[in-house]
């Protein structure tokens, strides 16, 4: 399954959220309702809902959504907490935990029946008296047993049963779209020969061959299981392609160890009828079979291959975590120790050189290699490219845009930008909120867009980049923009500010009101976003990371949400320069070019020194005089590092360029708070400290 690499993250995070939900409910039960606690619970539920929806676990999302409704009423004090509500909420948590555990073990989430709980919750939120003793979430135990029984009930074994593909409504939509686009869906059943040893490799080859013809939109069992050889001999694929069956058969014919390849065109219009009829028979354990998850319910699988093992579920290994969570403090310590090691190594090297101890020098060379590797790893352990977070979003955008019936194109840029692990862990939720917001409230419906003279497809961008001493993450859309007057009105109506205050605010500040707690302009509550928790959560999260979030918007042109995070923990590429005897680092991201000039190349315009570079007049800053560097020696050759901040350029004049290097940014500490000229300092390989220029400040 495509989300497999985020499974660990999802499991870890959802367990954390469940834990805080449990804690919150307990304190609620003990201390009665405290607004802060209810808010906290509500946010946890909200995040859990978002996460599970992103991962495609609709049952979990559904249950949390109902919980959220109840909590929302409590939050607004429209509902009095009583024992019954608390009990029900606790039962929900138990069910959620079970579902998440199931998911973690590779089982479908819907082994747990939550329909009673959902009913009960909705009756609570509707204010009806609780129905008499609704059955608690009893797991539909014995799913594997049902699965084992299924083959008997399953339709004919040999023919390509449509149920084998477990087509969901979404798959159907895909097929229909494909058909409209002149493509067709082909159901392919591949059976490997009995002697086949590397089953996963063969299935990989099959996938590869098919990828050249079209898109494999579905696989049963899921691709993850195929990779791990969690299948018997045959598997089912749905290929959307412009090619004919013949071409498919030819392509697969060249792969050895395939016993049989069966193909059949899948007609989405005909299948609509067939699927619901066939599926319940195939999966008696799953009540909502037509909408069965791509996660491949274990119970439905045997139907696809009746001759297979009786209870494949028993053979499944529990989901094993590939990662170890380490306290970030330990990593800090590790990095500091590393630094000390390097310095001492340099000292030893010096001793070896002064005393000409060849043997020592030789050993140290070996050690040097090890420490360099070690250093790299220690650094890298903390840094994670933002793609770790960004990769979850294309799927979410796709699902959400379908749900909202909008046409949206997501562009991701700068996903290789690295951020500290602590930041990465925290940044996912805020970005998700912002994205959902753009999708839901920003981008208009295609028809409305057309009426406004915009292309039907809305553009949403997710961009990360280094900017000065910050990492900037932007969520952009070309949607409706935010109307400051509307924001003012809502803010007044909600009592966030008074009318008088509202009039004083300029438009930009008025728009920023959306970051205040309890603010939502959406007319209707939707599943995607818009309960007014989003934006203030975003802001508090970002500020907790000592970052900053801002919004820039133009009506009918779109909005840009800009998250700025300090680079204090980041590793960046920098150019080391020398001015007399002092070393400084200039972030490579701000550098345009470097040139070598003669002192006579510097001209003056109105008493300001400039150089002319490719017809452009660029003001220069001499570091030596700007920083009052002690003058030790004269130089007749100068280097200019051309830097930019935004649109403006400047040339920084230095004596020498030392080279490009990866540096770890350290803060200068409290004693230098007023010093904006430097974004920090870094420790160089020889143990000396070099200051890092903040180019944007220098140019002011």
């Amino acid at each position, binding site marked *: 399954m495509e989300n497999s690499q985020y499974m660990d993250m999802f499991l870890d995070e959802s367990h954390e959220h469940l834990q805080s939900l449990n804690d919150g409910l307990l304190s609620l039960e003990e201390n009665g309702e405290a607004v802060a606690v209810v808010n906290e619970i509500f946010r946890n539920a909200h995040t859990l809902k978002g996460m599970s929806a992103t991962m495609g676990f609709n049952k979990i999302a559904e249950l949390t959504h109902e919980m959220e409704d109840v909590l929302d009423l409590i939050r607004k004090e429209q509902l009095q907490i009583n024992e019954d509500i608390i009990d029900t909420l606790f039962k929900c948590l138990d069910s959620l935990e079970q579902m998440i555990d199931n998911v973690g073990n590779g089982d479908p989430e819907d082994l747990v029946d939550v329909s009673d709980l959902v009913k009960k919750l909705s009756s609570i939120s509707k204010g009806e008296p609780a129905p008499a003793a609704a059955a608690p979430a009893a797991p539909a135990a014995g799913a594997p047993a049902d699965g084992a029984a299924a083959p008997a009930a399953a339709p004919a074994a040999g023919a390509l049963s449509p149920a084998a593909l477990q087509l969901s409504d979404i798959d159907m939509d895909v097929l229909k779209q494909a058909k409209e686009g002149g493509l067709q869906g082909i159901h392919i059943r591949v059976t490997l020969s009995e002697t086949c040893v590397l089953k996963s490799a063969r299935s990989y080859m099959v996938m590869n061959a098919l990828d050249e013809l079209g898109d494999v939109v579905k696989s049963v069992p899921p691709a993850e299981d195929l990779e791990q050889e969690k299948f018997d001999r045959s598997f089912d694929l749905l290929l959307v392609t412009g090619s004919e069956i013949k071409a498919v058969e030819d392509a697969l014919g060249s792969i050895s160890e395939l016993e049989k390849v069966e193909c059949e065109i899948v007609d989405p219009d005909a299948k609509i009828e067939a699927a619901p009829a066939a599926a319940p028979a195939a999966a008696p354990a799953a009540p909502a079979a037509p909408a069965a998850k791509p996660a491949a319910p274990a119970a439905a699988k045997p139907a696809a291959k009746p001759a297979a093992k009786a209870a494949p579920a028993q053979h499944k290994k529990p989901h094993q975590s590939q990662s170890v969570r380490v306290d970030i403090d330990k990593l800090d310590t590790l990095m500091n120790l590393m630094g000390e090691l390097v310095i001492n190594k340099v000292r030893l090297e010096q001793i070896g050189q002064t005393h000409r101890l060849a043997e020592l020098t030789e050993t140290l060379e070996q050690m040097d290699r090890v420490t360099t590797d070690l250093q790299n790893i220690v650094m890298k352990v903390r840094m994670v490219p933002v793609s770790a977070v960004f990769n979850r979003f294309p799927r979410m955008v796709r699902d959400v845009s379908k749900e909202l019936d909008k046409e949206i194109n997501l562009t991701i840029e700068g996903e290789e930008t690295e951020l500290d692990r602590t930041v990465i862990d925290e940044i996912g939720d805020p970005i998700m909120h912002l994205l959902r917001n753009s999708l839901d409230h920003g981008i208009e419906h295609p028809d409305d867009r057309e009426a406004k003279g915009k292309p039907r497809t809305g553009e949403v961008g997710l961009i990360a980049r280094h900017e000065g001493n910050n990492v900037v993450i932007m969520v952009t859309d070309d949607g409706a923009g935010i109307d400051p007057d509307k924001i003012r009105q809502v803010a007044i109506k909600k009592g966030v500010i008074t009318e008088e205050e509202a009039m004083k605010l300029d438009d930009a500040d008025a728009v920023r009101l959306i970051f205040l707690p309890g603010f939502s302009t959406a007319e209707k509550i939707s599943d995607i976003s818009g309960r007014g928790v989003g934006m203030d959560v975003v802001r508090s999260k970002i500020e907790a990371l000592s970052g900053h979030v801002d919004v820039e918007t133009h009506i009918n042109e779109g909005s840009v949400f800009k998250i700025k995070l300090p680079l204090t923990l980041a590793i960046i590429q920098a150019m080391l320069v020398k001015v007399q005897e002092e070393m400084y680092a200039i972030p490579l991201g701000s550098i345009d070019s470097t040139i070598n000039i003669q002192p006579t190349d510097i001209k003056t315009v109105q008493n300001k020194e400039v150089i002319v570079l490719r017809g452009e007049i660029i003001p220069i800053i001499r570091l030596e005089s700007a920083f*009052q560097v002690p003058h030790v020696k004269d130089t007749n050759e100068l280097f200019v590092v051309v830097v930019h901040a935004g649109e403006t350029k400047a040339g920084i004049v230095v004596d020498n360029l030392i080279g490009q290097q990866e540096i770890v940014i350290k803060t200068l500490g409290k004693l230098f708070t*007023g*010093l904006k*000229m430097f974004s920090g*300092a870094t420790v160089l390989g020889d*143990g000396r*400290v070099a200051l890092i220029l903040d180019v944007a400040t220098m140019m002011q």
Partner: protein
Amino acid sequence: MAKKKDENKQEFESMQVVAFKLRDEEYGVSILNVQEIRNLTDITRVPFAQDYIKGVINLRGSVLPVIDLKQRLGLEDSPYTENTRIVTITEDDVHVGILVDAVTEVLNLTSKPVDAKKAINNKEGMRFLSGIGNIDGRLIVMLNLPEIIGLPQEGK
């Protein structure tokens, strides 16, 4: 209950002081504030920083500001010698190094230091001193670390 004198005595019976030299005078800070004593290493000058901040050094991978104590106290400058040390201290979660001419020893201060205000009639230098300890006629000037570190106040 207890006599005031006894209390004072108790308080200072166990006070250990790291004593160091600035030119010919002896100064001290409580050993509880002292992290370690290091040899002089390369100090990187920080342009635009306050005069008394000599620069920053690398302390096991982190960056530590170094205060030139003679400059801070308004004493005349003198060149580095092989005895010059950087004493790294912690005060209120702030780590700094202070540059001293030599570290002499760890002393046991048994009597309460005299209030510096009474002893010296110099208002400017006053705020950096917390008291003067007397060990058999040997005078140790105790430093008022929060003032010396001079954490930036608002607006600065």
